[in-house]
């Protein structure tokens, strides 16, 4: 089983478009994991049926029971997250700021603070419209995304891949370099970096590459939207050579991509030329992967 993680550093470079395309090309032999749980988009293209749904709880949130509270202020004193609010002498917890550490509940002399499970969203196991299994999630707005949910999605994808004897897990990752990304990298066989020739995307790619090097992960890069800044494509290629990152392919800046999204399809289903390009990128990826 190979886990292919698709990330970018900068958002909007085309992660989901690439992941959906690979999922379609490899539909008989892959499971999809949408690990951009904050702003998941894969469901818009692959229409998972959400046949299995579970609630996801992440950590705890404090609640002050006003009846028991004597307004001693000890909770506010110990809270490092400024989550204790006082208005007209009434104490309450701001759930957006509460990290669920429980320090307040432990120091409260009146047992007025209860730690409740934080209902953070849903986990889904699905079959997509292309017939492949998919693990995904829906985080409640403003809920805590500690990377734990990413790990939960990946664990389900792994189990589904084992049960249905699929060779590939296609992981659509989050932007950035923080915990959701680090969590999506755990257990990765190979990382596909999707970038574009822009100053900002290259800056972000470099930070992501430094992160991958910390974890000694093998990676290849796909340069999307090449016509955006053609001179910079060369600069990215040189950078990839220097860092020993495989160049997997180059995709054009083309209206076919937004058109495919508008049609709720992967671009390999709507455009023959893009299908050829993506197929070659995926073949490249597989040969690099198996050489690891």
């Amino acid at each position, binding site marked *: 089983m190979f886990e292919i993680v698709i990330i970018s550093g*900068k*958002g*909007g470079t085309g992660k*989901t478009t690439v992941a959906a395309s690979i999922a379609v090309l490899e539909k008989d032999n892959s499971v999809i994991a949408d690990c951009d749980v*904050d*702003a998941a*988009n894969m469901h*818009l293209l692959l229409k998972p049926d959400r046949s299995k749904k579970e609630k996801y709880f992440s*950590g*705890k949130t404090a609640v002050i029971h006003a009846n028991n509270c004597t*307004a*001693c*202020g000890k909770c*506010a*004193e*110990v*809270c*490092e*997250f*400024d989550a*204790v*609010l*006082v208005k007209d*002498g009434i104490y309450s917890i701001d759930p*957006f700021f509460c*990290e*669920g*550490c*429980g*320090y307040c509940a*432990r*120091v409260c002399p009146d047992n007025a603070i209860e730690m409740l499970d934080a209902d953070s969203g849903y986990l889904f196991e699905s079959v997509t419209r292309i017939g492949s299994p998919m693990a995904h999630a829906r*985080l409640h*707005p*403003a*809920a*805590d*995304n*500690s*990377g734990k949910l990413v790990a939960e999605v990946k664990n389900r994808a792994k189990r589904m891949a084992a049960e249905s004897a699929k060779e590939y897990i296609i992981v659509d990752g989050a*932007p*950035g*370099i*923080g*915990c959701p990304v680090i969590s999506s990298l755990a257990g990765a066989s190979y990382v596909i970096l999707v970038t*574009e020739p*822009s*100053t*900002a995307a290259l800056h*972000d790619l470099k*930070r992501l590459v*430094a*992160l991958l090097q*910390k974890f000694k992960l093998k990676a290849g890069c796909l340069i999307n939207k090449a016509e*955006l*800044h053609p001179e*910079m494509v060369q600069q990215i290629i040189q950078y990839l050579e220097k860092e020993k990152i495989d160049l997997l392919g180059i995709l054009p800046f083309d209206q076919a991509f*937004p058109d495919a*999204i*508008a049609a709720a399809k992967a671009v390999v289903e709507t455009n023959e030329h893009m299908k050829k390009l993506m197929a070659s990128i995926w073949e490249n990826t597989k040969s690099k992967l198996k050489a690891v």
Partner: protein
Amino acid sequence: MHINLKVRPMDKNRTYRIAVASGKGGTGKTLVATNLADMWSVDRELLLVDLDVEEPNDALFLSVVPEPAQTQFKMIPEWNSDRCTLCDICTEVCNFNAIARMGEYIIVFEELCHSCYACSGLCPTDALPMKPRRMGELQIAKREQFYFIEGRLDIGQEQAVPMIRKVIQTVDKRQDIPDLQLFDCPPGTSCPVVNAVHTADLVILVTEPTAFGLNDLQLAVETMRSMNKEMGVVINRDGIGDDAVQRWCDASGIEVIATIPYDSQLAYAYAKGKLSWKTNSRLREALEEIIAYVSEKMKTHV
């Protein structure tokens, strides 16, 4: 009655804070924030803060010379074996599984630690004093009426929130920075964004007219509504998709403040790391609409 100075001040009327956010990444937050800040600073003093601490990009577009970077720390408990009686209170109180006992040793997992101080404060023998650990850097720059602060998380650090909070605390504390403040936020709808927009008086959500843009805008709007934030939308790259975003905003009672048409010259300038408000009249018009909208909001802000 006990008066606690650590309780968050509810009164922050001196400043006007605008958060530029989006659910989806890559919709144009940085384009809007940097161009808006640079253009507006011709007329008045303002502060731009780059809170996308995982991937801060604003500085790439700005001709500012930063002051020397300030190292930022978060507090992590450090085990003192001499004082420890192995009572296990610390491992029991830690809700993040960041402390474990291995035989006669206490191990602290730094990346899991949320710096809540519970283990340290509740240790009966003071065997877990909190010690500073580096998490990133903060940079400050100033050019005439334009002030800029950037938070930058060290590579390999998992938690963006402590860094975001540190940057906002710095903005809150400093007396020498302008009242008008623009926060360029991280993408998403979870904890980093919640922390970045929490103190904002107005949120500008930047989106694009695609199904992805609309889906993530809907999530972002839900997030902002749950936090009772006042908000408006800017549609970037108008013309690449359809009018579903505009129609949804109209139907949901959310004002579309401005629309920036897709323009290959604008995309090229952005790719090169250049600001475009001086050369691109369509962008300038959109920014003028944003400034007019915000100025109106500021008048009624008490």
